[in-house]
């Protein structure tokens, strides 16, 4: 009987240890990710022109989105979500390693009003986008310095198998990230509004 209780206690300590380790690891990863993004954002902002003159995208919305290279990685601009106090640089292409540096362009283009952005569920990435409310604003600045303002229209939860559902509908901008259990994707749909 005493042996049994010892095994329970041992297992309990083991799991507690594992849990604490994982929690620590997650905190470390999140901290690292927000630092990396912060640094890249600073460099990126310096490179973005103040007075955008190139209005090419208005005439040619099909053009490729311009990029800036920061430490070997390509960025298409930066995103601000004021209600969550978030500012992040956005990478041109989606990949596992790019996800550790900031949100990625999953597909589409700002100029064609069909862009989809993906990011990790880190607290300072898209981890809190589920808290966004209707009419909350999201601001995107491209590397030519054009500013686009969006407002939240609706929130969806899409099963990870529903690959096509992410593309469905006519949304100017979409943000998505994993839910807590990783089985679904918290998805925010936005509409472009007039400039402030």
């Amino acid at each position, binding site marked *: *009987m*005493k042996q*049994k*209780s*010892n*095994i*329970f*206690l*041992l*297992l*309990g*300590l*083991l*799991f*507690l*240890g*594992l*849990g*604490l380790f*994982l*929690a620590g*690891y*997650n905190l470390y*990863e999140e901290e690292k990710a927000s630092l990396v993004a912060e640094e890249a954002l600073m460099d990126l902002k310096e490179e973005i022109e103040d007075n955008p003159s190139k209005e*090419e995208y208005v*005439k*040619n919305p*099909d*053009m*490729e*989105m*311009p*990029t800036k290279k920061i430490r070997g990685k*390509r960025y298409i601009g930066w995103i601000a979500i004021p209600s969550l106090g978030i500012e992040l640089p956005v990478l*041109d292409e*989606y990949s596992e390693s790019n*996800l550790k540096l900031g949100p990625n362009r*999953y*597909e589409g283009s700002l100029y064609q009003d069909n862009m989809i952005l*993906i*990011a*990790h*569920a*880190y607290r300072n990435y*898209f*981890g809190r986008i589920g808290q966004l409310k209707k009419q909350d604003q999201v601001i995107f600045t491209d590397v030519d310095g054009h500013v686009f303002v969006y407002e939240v229209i609706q929130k969806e939860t*899409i099963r*990870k*198998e*529903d*690959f*096509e559902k*992410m593309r469905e509908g006519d949304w100017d901008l979409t943000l*998505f*990230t*994993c*839910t*807590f259990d*990783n089985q679904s*994707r918290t998805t925010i749909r936005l509409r472009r509004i007039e400039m402030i």
Partner: protein
Amino acid sequence: MKKNKIWISLLFLGMISFLFLPTTQAKEFNPEKKSSLTLFYEIEEVDTSDVSFSLYQVAYRKDSKTYEITKDFQKYPIVLKEENFKDLAFTLEGYVFRDDIKPYQEAKVKNQKVTFSSLEPGVYLVIGTAKKEKGMIYTPESILVSLPNLEEDWNYQVEANLKYESREETDQKLSKTVLKIWKDEESKDRPNQITVELLKDGEVVESVELSKENDWRYTFSELEANARYQVVEKEVEKGYTVWVSEEKNTYMITNLQEEKKESTGTLPNTGTTWIYAVLFLGMGGIFLLLGLLTRKKHETKE
């Protein structure tokens, strides 16, 4: 009353048959019958009589629906679609100038018009020479035309008014920007770079690589304003087709991937391992509780 009904149904029948008439007629395409093409080229107060037009056969028309590209143009990755004829004409103009393709027929404007005749069914490209007069340059817009042309019926005597671009002769320089447009849903087959050739009066004068490095755009500057320019994408990636459009001083080179692959799979994982941390912490708590409880039980028993 009855008479009225008969009249109405007769009228109705008449209307129905009228609806069917043009469609049945339109289907009668005669592959043997030759066509003619008359082009009107009028510029106010300008004598266009020494402007010459060259005619190139781009495709044969096999039946009412399909074309077969001719030998001269087979090596170019184009798809003939009527709605795209304007851009395709400019695209092919570039190839004709660069590769010096020989025309099928040539003719000079007379009384503000020019006629080509005995043309077998197909798609034809018309390119004209520029005309300088009184400090102005007039350049006719190249066109692609389908012969015979399907209007209400097959028309074997096609007529068209040619548009032209006019600009002042000047010593000033100008710039032209080229933009790359990909229509391939960010395919993995997209090449990392492509080469664009700039043609000035039929000669390649500059060649530039477009890639992510320059955001797939480039501006040719210090160009002589009085010359005639085209751009050609040097080699088009396999599986893609091309067309070039021009607006003012911007060229857009579009590459379309013809076969779109079906996308499958799941949405990428963007999660954290917080859920496991919480799970482990919970399990740790439960085991500790169990351990403590069993120990207490044991102690009270003793």
